[in-house]
């Protein structure tokens, strides 16, 4: 290295400063400001003032606890299904994909090239009451005429799960691909059967990928409102829908901010727990 002079010591600050200043103003401060707005009182016409109304936090969550819990429930279910569906796929591509590994991975990631809203919207076409799937089944009298999927929790969870698949397969694949095959072979040499080698060697070695995928998908799905808005009905409202309508239609900023603060806080607690147990380093590598 050349001179370790003042220039070199200042370099990281000069390099990082523009991005830092930008993120401070347009990311960190707004996140803190959310909490401040959550403590304001007033109404849309006369505006809101900061009155340190702490009880607003508890009153909002008790008012919307149903949607709040539902979001975590849908988020957890869709993440688990996505994990169970994706793991064998990532495993097969990583271990048996051979020459076609990259092409198969590209196929799984293909949905990324279609707008998220359009992707969700097409499930509307696929699952419609008179659409290709249900319409055909009904014509063959395999389903009752009144059977429907759209507007049910099933439709919302299916949409969330579908959108999660590429996000789940990718980190799982990265983790599984890095496993040295000799370690698996060593397990066989030590008389571990297929199941034993898989459960005691492969799965633990891919733990980083599992939790990277879990976090990416869980956080996205708990805070999502597009799937519930497009595929759901009145009984599937998630906390994201409440935040969105409070903010953009009811102009009830304190309620929306209080709910955002709750959502962020709950998810950060979940992330902090995982980070403590598994280390954030691995998670960052995959994001």
């Amino acid at each position: 290295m050349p001179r370790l002079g003042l220039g070199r010591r200042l370099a990281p600050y000069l390099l990082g400063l523009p991005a830092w200043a930008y993120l401070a103003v347009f990311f960190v401060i707004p996140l803190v400001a959310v909490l401040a707005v959550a403590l304001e009182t007033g109404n849309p016409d006369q505006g809101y003032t900061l009155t340190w109304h702490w009880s607003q936090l508890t009153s909002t969550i008790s008012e919307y606890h149903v949607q709040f819990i539902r979001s975590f429930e849908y988020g957890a279910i869709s993440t688990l299904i996505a994990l169970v569906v994706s793991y064998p796929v990532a495993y097969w591509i990583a271990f048996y994909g051979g020459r076609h590994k990259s092409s198969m991975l590209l196929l799984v990631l293909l949905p990324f090239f279609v707008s998220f809203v359009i992707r969700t919207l097409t499930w509307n076409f696929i699952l419609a009451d008179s659409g290709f799937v249900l319409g055909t089944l009904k014509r063959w009298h395999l389903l009752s005429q009144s059977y429907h999927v759209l507007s049910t929790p099933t439709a919302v969870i299916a949409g969330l799960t579908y959108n999660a698949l590429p996000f789940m397969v990718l980190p799982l694949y990265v983790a599984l691909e890095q496993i040295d095959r000799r370690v698996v072979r060593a397990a066989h040499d030590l008389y571990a059967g297929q199941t034993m080698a898989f459960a005691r060697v492969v799965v633990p070695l891919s733990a980083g990928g599992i939790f990277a995928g879990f976090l990416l998908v869980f956080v996205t799905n708990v805070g999502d409102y597009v799937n519930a808005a497009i595929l759901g009905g009145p009984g599937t409202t998630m906390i994201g829908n409440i935040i969105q309508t409070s903010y953009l239609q009811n102009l009830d900023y304190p309620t929306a901010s209080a709910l955002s603060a709750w959502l962020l806080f709950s998810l950060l607690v979940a992330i902090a727990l995982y980070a403590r147990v598994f280390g954030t380093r691995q998670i960052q590598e995959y994001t």
Partner: protein
Amino acid sequence: MTTAVETAEKGALAVKPRRRWGVAALGAYTWLVILYTIAPIFVMIAYSFNQAAAGGKLTFAWLGFTTDWYVHLFDLAALTQALERSLEVASVATVGATLLGVPLALALARHRFWGKGFTDLVIFIDIAAPSIVVGASLLSLFISLDWPRGLMTIIIAHIAFDIPFVAVVVRARLEGLDRSIEKAAYDLGAGPWTAFYRVTLPLIWPGIVAGALLSFALSIDDFIITSFVAGQTLTFPLFVYGSVKVGIPPQVFAMGTLIFVGGIVLAILNALWQRRQTA
């Protein structure tokens, strides 16, 4: 990146005959899931060729084949404008995020400094935070500053969520770099600027391109954050979402199909180019 030797060593496990069926079943399952993942893409492409009912909106029912929507792709002024806005936002945000994110990556990969751990944490939270909270908090900021929402606020928001992705991708490239090449440049009398410009920059260029492409892709597809800070301005995803309730014009799927094809072509070109760089 693994070398050829490592890949050979890690190569597919030898399959015993009695396990072949299991492997084959797993392979079939994988293809089924892949089919399921890309099914909506086929639906989008198919419906982009579907004739529309009298109102000019798409129906769930198949009314017959037509290429009208590609011929009249730009007939809907609002939709065309929304697409232009999306391209504009994604381009400007990508340039902005790259200009800010690359130096940040250099600072993180090459230097120890006060506040580094905190910077890592902020980058992590920016990537991990749910979009809805990021969008809502930015809207709070713009409301309290009394800034009118529109194109400007959308671009500001997009740069904010793109920076960490550029920084993470470029940093990974920097950390994978052999530093002795840079040291050799210094030994040969290059100053810090020359060494950076002539040695480091060309070496991390593929990382910068990858980071920029990622940020472009994230920007052009973002819906949730944009929906908060857009005001009356419509981007392509916002237009599509808005049209769900009033009926979807068929051009939406035609444009979606063209964006899809364009994205694939870009990805393939980038892969070929990266391969040439490393070869």
